[in-house]
């Protein structure tokens, strides 16, 4: 992995650093992540079986039920949420879930969008990212 910096768009502010987890397919928390464990359960996901807990979770865009925000929030309530969400297209369930997480559980989970899909394939092999939801900055460590 080549160290470097890329810039997306910050949607919810805050900073986070953690191991990266990349899905190259549309992603949803709704019926897709078990909030009790953080494990990805969606049978159509390419990262089924991985755990989102504490990760910088990257995916191209959201899909499916409008309740994904609530499923995401339940992972926060149970302490199994990702540390940050980085997407290509805007996923409103990520934005809404993150705002609720800050207000209700005092937990800051930055959300960024506009990070090109090509970057995802570079990152797929793992590594550590630092993200800043205020500036949209993503630093590959």
């Amino acid at each position, binding site marked *: 992995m080549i160290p470097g910096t890329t810039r997306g768009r910050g949607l919810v502010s805050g900073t986070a650093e953690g191991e990266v987890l990349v899905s190259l397919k549309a992603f949803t928390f709704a019926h897709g992540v078990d909030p009790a464990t953080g494990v990805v359960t969606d049978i159509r996901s390419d990262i089924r079986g991985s755990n989102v807990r504490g990760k910088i979770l990257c995916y191209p865009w959201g899909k499916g039920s409008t309740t994904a925000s609530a499923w995401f*929030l339940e992972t926060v*309530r149970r302490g199994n949420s990702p540390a940050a969400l980085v997407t290509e297209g805007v996923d409103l369930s990520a934005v809404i879930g993150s705002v609720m997480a800050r207000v209700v559980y005092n937990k800051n989970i930055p959300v960024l969008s506009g990070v090109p899909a090509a970057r995802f394939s570079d990152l797929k092999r793992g590594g550590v990212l630092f993200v800043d939801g205020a500036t949209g900055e993503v630093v590959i460590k």
Partner: protein
Amino acid sequence: MRLDSNQERILAGEEGEARQFAMEIVTKVGDAVDAGSLVPIKSAHVLAHYSSLHDAGVEVLERFAEKGGKFKVPTTVDPASIDLQGWRSFGIPEDYARQQFRLCDAYTKLGGIQCWTCVQYQVCNFPKPGEAVAWAESSSVVFANSVIGCRSNKITSGMDVACAILGVTPMFGMLADENRVAKVAFRASFGKFSDLDFRSLGYLIGKKAGSRVPVLEGLPSNVTSDDLKHLGASAAAAGPITMIHYLGITPGSATFKDATEGEKVEQIDVIRGDLEDMEEDLNQTNDKPDLVALGVPHLSITELGYLAKLLEGRKMRKGIRMYAYTSSQAFELAQKTGILSDIQAAGARLSQSTDAEISPLKKLGFNTVLTNSAKLAEIVSSEGEVQVRYAPLRTIIDEVTS
């Protein structure tokens, strides 16, 4: 996003914590989608079922209520995860019911209309063409944009309550004229429609349209609003669709040119074989069912009357249950008009204020569900816990009754 001075005050917390929380959600979404401003809505429709909202959703809704939140516009609510009247008789565990009732209490405190249905537009929420609304529940959003001609985006859980409390929604997506133009055309070229065909056709449109708004030609002239309800629900279950131009039905879409604004679009002919492919997709098993689930989305009183007629003189076979899901309002009418007792006489049950896809089917011991709902088949299959068979209503009745 531009906020007026009143909206700035709300965001600063000057109208209390509930409205501040709501404004934080709405402005973050507005910024994310590049909405220029917030626009007033005439009604809201929110989600408050425990199966998807979990304990976190209970705590969010209670927080809104405890911090003094009140719905600013008429607000209706999607089905609960349990039959709110008869939950014990359906075998729902006590602790599960308790969490659902916490959601109910918070919703009541916020001033919501107690309808608990996904077909609020057939029961208690009646916008007129052109009005902006903020509805969650994907199938009702398709009905709103396509049949009523009002304007709604598919509102995400959490934001639904925020919009209802503020009486506004960000100006984006389906609220803007330019995003409502049809970009792909479907023509139904398979002759006569069965009940299943409306659903399979909707499912196909949902799969093939992607993010493009479709226009549909070739519906029979006697198509009912119930048929359109199921068509739209199936489309929304299969893809991101929020509107279908039904030629001659959708307000403002009398002609093909109206729907596409004269632009050239891809044309897709749908033949019988295409529908059969969809049926095959949705049909996951040939096992004997232990539950027949009808009414995803909720059946109207007309549909319940038709079901009672089909069941006349028949009896459910042993080992198979039939639940027909409906609103409390249609349930009451069915009670008054004898439809309920006719359905019960056949050994089937009506379940009110809940629906199959949001009730804990696996917990209740069901493994194989038989349905004519493409929406139910799609949702349940993605979870993988319960197997679904997908068949027309008449076939179902013939198979499970004697």
